Each structure stands twice: as structure tokens, then as C-alpha cells.
């Protein structure tokens, strides 16, 4: 769909540019629609072997012995590795405090994860791996490995895991250690919540919870490792070739320059892939031992249980309100289920959205014997925003106010109530969204008042998402024919980074798009890029492109155009900083649902979004990002859950069918409006985009369901059975 532009919006609307801001099809569109784009699984090397991984069938067990002799004897098997002969520390697999991208913390991390762990701590923990002449032989060999397990007690729920008699997943206990290896929850305090709750005339309490949602990118995990002498090349789906490259070198104990990582096309990212994975390391060790290239492929079920997804949460809120509907206190006690290893923070966003003098947030990242949690698109926000914005929505109704008015009265217009933003447009996002959605007409002042059995209602949610600055690099060449070559270490995970970098370069150089050739996705050819995480690539690498273009223009002015075989070369590694300000993107989603009160189904009848992501580089791909993110959020709100059987500890829904990701028929038309701004930072004012669209979607949908049926749905996903239960 065509995005609506801010024709009559804020005075900060930036002046139009020549190349940026116009809908431009991707420069690699032909590759994408002809099957010519090469993904990791498409890589074929001469003499390549196929690898398969044997995984723990138990949620928690000690390996007493492993007998691989029969597997090794099978014709066609070239290498078998286990914790006894193929052990490597996987630094990114578990890191104190969930602090990725920090070698020092990885070094001191006590609760380490290895490529093969003993004890095994979740169903799917790798136990052994085989490389063989083809995948059928590799699979057959797995069946011949005999493992003697001592089965240990397990725990699945974070609150249960903190009880004194819970099975200990780590010697230090089940509260995950922070970046200083201390067992302390993440605590933030402002003012005096305890005192304020005593004196507030209205106090509300509630519990919200959210499920484990798998990234479920379409490309199942694969890795191809190839040693040429002491140089290792790894083809792998990573959102950050530079970080992945450094991680592999560190974990294998070889110099960075002896590793090359290649990832040009990647079948979906959605978080926690800006580092290496155990599959990369296992493939590298197998390839070394077998003396041949190895392609490791994961099945879809292995990807669901062996990789990572959004951490499930339990959230207890206490909210104090004055008689004039002003928030006085916000308190959150939260628990995040991290699985048995610490990949990321386990944080929950939400309370920072509100202006409130007394705030206390105590969040415990907890180990469980489920699969591992990690960053999934907007890591801490969709689940935290669902809890916080459902809670505040509920308070608004209880204070007899329109939730939009209550929020506008109580929202924070400074970062954490303290630091100013570089620009601020959240009020405008909400006002524009409410007008376009026709909030006054669609919102029911009396929830559940439609005569039914199909009842409609409307809900909304808002979001602020970080858009900080940071270091990244770009290199640019100009030849005597006037052709520029741009070297950037981006991966095209789906957001269109390659096209965006081409657009930014063309704009900065004032040349047509075709005058710039982009080289990307290969650490031997491209300089450092921050990686596709945190919605940072456009801001950081894009800014480096602008700087490299400025350098080459300066060189042209000084030396003239290159002649003959001469080439002008420019590079830039800017580290821009914000002084005393915070930079954010903003957004508001308004949703109308129709709930079938007899069958429990939720049908989205209208979905309106308004986003400020700064200046829009390419409206065509920007709309794709917001629409896709919102629909992913619908999956999290209504369907997706990696369900575990409480008695056996077995995952029951590890696949697309039972996990129930959204299909064509679940996807409503997502209306997209951008409020554009240029705050003077980033490339031409671009801000974060990719994660922005998902993080308010579950909250908006849940609030709409309340408005439709008058029952507050407090546990994601909001499946039919829960709706019927609430109405019973």
C-alpha cells in the first residue's frame, strides 16, 4: 500500500530530497524473485559433507557415557564429535548479564555454555554431531550413538525455579548472574514507591504473563564451514558478519584474520543473530576433523527448540493514582524465563512510558529447563508493553476515563522523566492515529456493550524505541569511468539494508542509483558494520556512508577525477555522540477487533499505525517493515506459544503448524502513516524502524479485546479457549 505522508504535519517536516524519500524497488529485486539470491543452504562446495546434531531428549540430565563407535564405523561417516572430543566455549551462547559484544565479560562469565554441555539442560541441548557423505547417512549415524543419561529433576516456570526446593540448574542457583557474576535482580528505583502507595487514594494491582515466541524465520539454521590451510570460511545466516566473525575467532582461539564470514542473503533475522551460533562452531570443528567442507543443517523442529525466541514473562504491577487521575506510583515485580543459558537481558520495557514520581522495577531473569530465550525483534518491549499498557488501560477504565485521554495526561515527554529527546512527536502520533482511525466512533465507552454474539471494540498502544548513534564503517572507491563502489559490512536480512545503503550513497554523492555498486556481506571485503540488531544499521552504517561520500567528494574537489587505472579511495568510521539528549522513534497503533463470543475467535477489522522513524529513506520498504512487524505482533498477541508439557518437560508445539504463526488469512490490511522528522542526527535524519512496528501490537490488540468483550485478557497469547474461559 502507499504510505500516507505528513502533508499537514509538524513544522519539523524535512524538505524533500532527490533520491531518498521516494519509493524505490530493491536493487536486488530480480535476484529475489528468480531464485538466484544465494542463501547459506544453497552453498555447495566440492567434496562437501553433511552434518547433523544429536540433541538431548531430556529437559535436564547428566551424560554418564556416550558410545559413538557404531556411528563412526558406519560407511560414509567422516567425523563424530561430542563433549569429549569437540568441546568449544560458545561465548555468545551464555554471557554474564546477557551482555553481548563484550569480550571482557565473556571472559569472566561463570555460567558458560559450550558447543556440547554436560549436564544437558533443555530438550534440544546438543549432545553430539556427525559429518557424513550425505544427509541420509548422517541421520542414520545419529541413531547409532548410544548415550547413557542420568535423568535429573527439571523446572519450567521462572517463579517455580526461584523456590528454595527447585532443582538447581546451575550451582549458583536459578537467578541468572549479572555482568559482575552476582545473583541480583535488575532493579531500578525513583522516588519512594512504598510511601506513595500508602498515601495514594486509588491503588490497583494485577498480574500479566506472556509466552515464549520463537523467531521462526523461514530459513532454518544452517552453517557451511570450509578450512583452506589455517583459514576458516563460514557461510552462515548472521545479521552481523563482523560480530559473528570475531565471535568465531575468539571461541576457536584463532586470530580474527584467519576467519572469513559470508552472509549476503538471509532468510529472516528478527533478533539475536548479530553474533555467532553453536552451529557455526560445530560445523567448523567437524570440518577440521573431517578435512573437508561441512554443511550443517537444522530441521525445523531443531530450529524451534535449539535456537532462541522471546523470553516469556510474569509481571506483577501495582499502580497508585490520585483523585485527579494522575499517576503517583508504578511498581513492577517481574520474572523472565531465560532457559538454562543467558543470551540476553531478560528486561521488560513499559514503565518508562509514563510520567510518575515514584517508580520501582525489580526484574529477575531466571533459569529454567526450557529452550533458550534471546532477543526477538524489540527484545524487552512487546511483552513488557503488553503488561504495562494493559495495566494502565485497565486503570483508565477504572478511573472512568477514555484510555487515550488518560495516557495523554500521564505520558512522559522526557526520557525516563529526566532527559530531553532530540525531537518528540508521540503526542502527534497518538492524535493523528486517533483521528485516522476514528477512535471516538469505534471505541465503546461501555466495554462489551455490543449486543453480540460478535462484539467489536477498539484499543490503542504507544511506543518509544531507542534510536541512538554509534560507530560503524564504510569504504568507497571511485574509478575513472565515474563508477563508485561502496563496501559496507551489512547483511540483507530482509529489511533491505543493501538498497538503503545504495540510496544513501546516491543521495550523498548526488549521482543516480546505478552509479554506485554495493559490495556487502563478506568480512574479507567489507569493513566493520554494527550488524542487523537494534534497528541500527541505517542510522550507524548509513551515517558512515554519508561521511565516506563527503570524503570522496572532497578528494574530487582537491585532486579531480581519477584517470586511467587510478582509483580514489575514501573511508569513514564516525562515532557520533549525543550530548545530553536521547534519540528515539515513536509510534501509535489503533486496532479494532471483532470477537466471536460463541467461538472465541478474534478478527481484526481495522489496524491503523502512525510512526515517526525520522526521515523515511525508502517509503516502499519502510511500509513493508511496519506492516510485517505489526502482523508478527498479531501472532504474538493471538497465537504463538512454544508450549511445554509440565510433566515430561517436552516441547509440544515446536513447528509452524502447532506454534501457529500468522498466515495470509490472519493478516489484516495494516494502514501506515509516517510523521517524518529530521533532528539533525543520523543519515539525513533517519531513525530506528525495523523493530518499532511490533512492540506495541500485542498491547493494542489486547486493549481492543477488552473494549469489545469487557474482560481483561492477562495472558499471551489470547487464544480462543482463554476468551471463552473469560466469558464463561
Amino acid at each position, binding site marked *: 500500500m502507499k504510505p500516507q505522508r505528513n502533508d499537514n504535519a509538524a513544522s519539523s517536516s524535512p524538505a524533500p530530497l532527490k533520491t531518498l524519500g521516494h519509493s524505490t524497488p530493491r536493487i536486488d529485486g530480480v535476484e529475489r524473485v528468480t531464485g538466484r539470491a544465494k542463501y547459506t543452504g544453497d552453498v555447495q562446495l*566440492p567434496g562437501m559433507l553433511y552434518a547433523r546434531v544429536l540433541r538431548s531428549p531430556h529437559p535436564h540430565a547428566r551424560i554418564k557415557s556416550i558410545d559413538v563407535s557404531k556411528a563412526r564405523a558406519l560407511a560414509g561417516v567422516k567425523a563424530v564429535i561430542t563433549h569429549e572430543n569437540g568441546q568449544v566455549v560458545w561465548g555468545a551462547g551464555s554471557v554474564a548479564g546477557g551482555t553481548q559484544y563484550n569480550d571482557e565479560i565473556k571472559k569472566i562469565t561463570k555460567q558458560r555454555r559450550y558447543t556440547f554441555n554436560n549436564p544437558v539442560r533443555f530438550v534440544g541441548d546438543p549432545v553430539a554431531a556427525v559429518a557424513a557423505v550425505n544427509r541420509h547417512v548422517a541421520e542414520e549415524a545419529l541413531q547409532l550413538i548410544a548415550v547413557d543419561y542420568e535423568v535429573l529433576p527439571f523446572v519450567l516456570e521462572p517463579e517455580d525455579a526461584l523456590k528454595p526446593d527447585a532443582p538447581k540448574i546451575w550451582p549458583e542457583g536459578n537467578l541468572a548472574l549479572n555482568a559482575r557474576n552476582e545473583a541480583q535482580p535488575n532493579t531500578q528505583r525513583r522516588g519512594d514507591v512504598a510511601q506513595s502507595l500508602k498515601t495514594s487514594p486509588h491503588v490497583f494491582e494485577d498480574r500479566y504473563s506472556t509466552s515464549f515466541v520463537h523467531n521462526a524465520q523461514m*530459513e532454518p539454521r544452517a552453517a557451511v564451514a570450509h578450512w583452506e590451510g589455517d583459514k576458516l570460511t563460514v557461510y552462515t545466516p548472521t545479521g552481523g558478519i563482523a560480530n559473528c566473525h570475531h565471535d568465531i575467532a575468539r571461541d576457536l582461539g584463532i586470530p580474527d584474520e584467519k576467519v572469513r564470514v559470508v552472509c549476503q542473503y538471509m532468510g529472516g533475522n528478527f533478533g539475536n543473530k548479530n553474533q555467532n551460533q553453536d552451529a557455526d562452531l560445530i560445523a567448523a570443528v567437524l570440518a577440521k576433523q573431517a578435512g573437508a567442507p561441512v554443511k550443517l543443517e537444522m530441521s*525445523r523442529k531443531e530450529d524451534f527448540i535449539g535456537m532462541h525466541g522471546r523470553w516469556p514473562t510474569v509481571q506483577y504491577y501495582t499502580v497508585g493514582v490520585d483523585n485527579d487521575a494522575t499517576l503517583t506510583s508504578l511498581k513492577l515485580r517481574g520474572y523472565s524465563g531465560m532457559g538454562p543459558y543467558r543470551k540476553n537481558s531478560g528486561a521488560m520495557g513499559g514503565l518508562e512510558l509514563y510520567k510518575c514520581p515514584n517508580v520501582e522495577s525489580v526484574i529477575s531473569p531466571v533459569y529454567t529447563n526450557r529452550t533458550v530465550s534471546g532477543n526477538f525483534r524489540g527484545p524487552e518491549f512487546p511483552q513488557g508493553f503488553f503488561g504495562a499498557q494493559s495495566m494502565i488501560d485497565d486503570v483508565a477504565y477504572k478511573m472512568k476515563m477514555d484510555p487515550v485521554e488518560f495516557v495523554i495526561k500521564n505520558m512522559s515527554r522526557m526520557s525516563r522523566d529526566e532527559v530531553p529527546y532530540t525531537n518528540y512527536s508521540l503526542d502527534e502520533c497518538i492524535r493523528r492515529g486517533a483521528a485516522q482511525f476514528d477512535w471516538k466512533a469505534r471505541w465503546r465507552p461501555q466495554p462489551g456493550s455490543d449486543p453480540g454474539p460478535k462484539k467489536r471494540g477498539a484499543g490503542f498502544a504507544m511506543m518509544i524505541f531507542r534510536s541512538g548513534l554509534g560507530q560503524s564503517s564504510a569504504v568507497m572507491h571511485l574509478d575513472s569511468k565515474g563508477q563508485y563502489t561502496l563496501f559496507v559490512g551489512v547483511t540483507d536480512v530482509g529489511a533491505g539494508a543493501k538498497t538503503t545503503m545504495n540510496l544513501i550513497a546516491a543521495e550523498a554523492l548526488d549521482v543516480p542509483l546505478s552509479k554506485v555498486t554495493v559490495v556487502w556481506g563478506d568480512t574479507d571485503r567489507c569493513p566493520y558494520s554494527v550488524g542487523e540488531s537494534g534497528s541500527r544499521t541505517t542510522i550507524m552504517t548509513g551515517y558512515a556512508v554519508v561521511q565516506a561520500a563527503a570524503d570522496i567528494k572532497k578528494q574530487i574537489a582537491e585532486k579531480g577525477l581519477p584517470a586511467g587505472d587510478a582509483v580514489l579511495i575514501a573511508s569513514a568510521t564516525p562515532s557520533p555522540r549525543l550530548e545530553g539528549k536521547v534519540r528515539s522513534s515513536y509510534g501509535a497503533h489503533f486496532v479494532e477487533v471483532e470477537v466471536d463470543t460463541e467461538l472465541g475467535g478474534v478478527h481484526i477489522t481495522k489496524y491503523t499505525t502512525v510512526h515517526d522513524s525520522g526521515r523515511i529513506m525508502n517509503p516502499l520498504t519502510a*511500509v513493508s517493515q511496519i*506492516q510485517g512487524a505489526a502482523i508478527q505482533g498479531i501472532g504474538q498477541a493471538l497465537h504463538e506459544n512454544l508450549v511445554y508439557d509440565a510433566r515430561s518437560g517436552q516441547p509440544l508445539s515446536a513447528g509452524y503448524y502447532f506454534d501457529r504463526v500468522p498466515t*495470509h*488469512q490472519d493478516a489484516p*490490511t495494516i494502514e501506515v502513516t509516517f510523521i517524518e522528522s529530521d533532528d539533525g542526527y543520523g543519515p539525513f535524519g533517519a531513525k530506528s524502524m525495523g523493530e518499532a512496528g511490533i512492540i506495541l501490537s500485542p498491547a493494542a490488540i489486547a486493549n481492543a479485546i477488552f473494549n469489545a468483550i469487557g474482560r481483561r485478557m492477562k495472558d499471551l497469547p489470547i487464544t480462543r479457549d482463554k476468551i471463552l474461559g473469560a466469558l464463561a
Partner: protein
Amino acid sequence: MDPSRREFLEGTGAALAVAAVAPALDAQTPPAQAPAISVDPSVPRTIIRVTVNGVVRRIEVEDRWTLVELLRDRLALTGTKIGCDRGECGACTVLMDGKPVYSCSNLAVWADGKSITTVEGLVTNGRLSPLQQAFIEHDAPQCGFCTSGQLMAATALLAANPRPTAPEVRAAMVGNLCRCSGYNHYVESVLAAAGSGARSTGAGGQP
């Protein structure tokens, strides 16, 4: 026929089939890959006759191979993707005698006597199909991994129903998941290619 001789001929055939369409679109197209795997002589095998993207082939396959293994690993047609390998996601959709099928859920031997069309077969005389063109213009592929499956499902739909409505598109393509969730742009692309874009408006995703 001598097995090694047969493999040689089939490898050449695969290379020619790709080369026939590639140069007209993009001179930088990498050369077609050699067949990745050869048949394992120790397992049951069958010789099948199958037409792939218009080229008739007599080819020996292992009985355990799925159709997608034959296409990707033996014929180097890697445009068809494996997303789940168990009939859930549709990334491996190809046309079998014009009907969309999951190539992960069909054995290669079942293709005997059939005609298979893959994404590599959609380009004719160096030109993209109207659907391929519309997919680019409407930014339907994001990561692109589900795209060939979406294209094949849409190709079959338009062959059977040249002017579908948006709900008809969603119903026909419900078996093709897109985790980037670019569903809006996929539906718009199909309607645009069908010339029925004017009917794409209207809220609500369900038929």
C-alpha cells in the same frame, strides 16, 4: 546406460537449462552449480522420466529422495527453498503438472512422468513473468526465503482464476507462510499482476 555417463549428461542439461534464461537478465549471473550430490549406489534407486522447466530428463534418483532434494541437490535448482521439510510452510512449493505441491512432501519417484515447474522456470525469453515484476514493484519479498513458494502458488492461482479477489488470493496462498509477514504486499502484488488491483481495498484479512 553407464551410470557415470548418465550423470554427466544430466549435469550438462541442468547447466543449459539455467544458462538459457540467465544472461538476458543479468550478465553477472554466476555459472550454474555442478550437481551437489550423486546417487548412492548402495541404496534402492529408480530411473524416472520427468520434465523440469520444459526440459525432458531421464534421471536416476534414490528412492528416499524427496522432490525438493532432487531439485536442489541433484539439479542445482536452489531457488526452491526448504523451510520446514514437513509440509507446514510452503517455501518448497513447485508446480506439478500445473498444480502447486509441497516438494518436501513428495518423493522424487512420484514425479515420474510429470512436468515440474520451479521458480527458475518462470522467466521466459529473458523476461520476468508479470507476477515476478509485480513482486519487485510492490516490495513483496522481504528476506525472500518464502518468495519462490509464494510465486509458484500465485502462478497456479492466476492460471486457474485470472482475476481473483483479495480474499481469493489469501485463500489460495494460505499454505505459504511469510515470517517477515509481508502478506499485505504479497496480496497487492498478485492483484496488480492480475490487473485487479482496484479490488484490493477493504479492511479485514479474513475472507
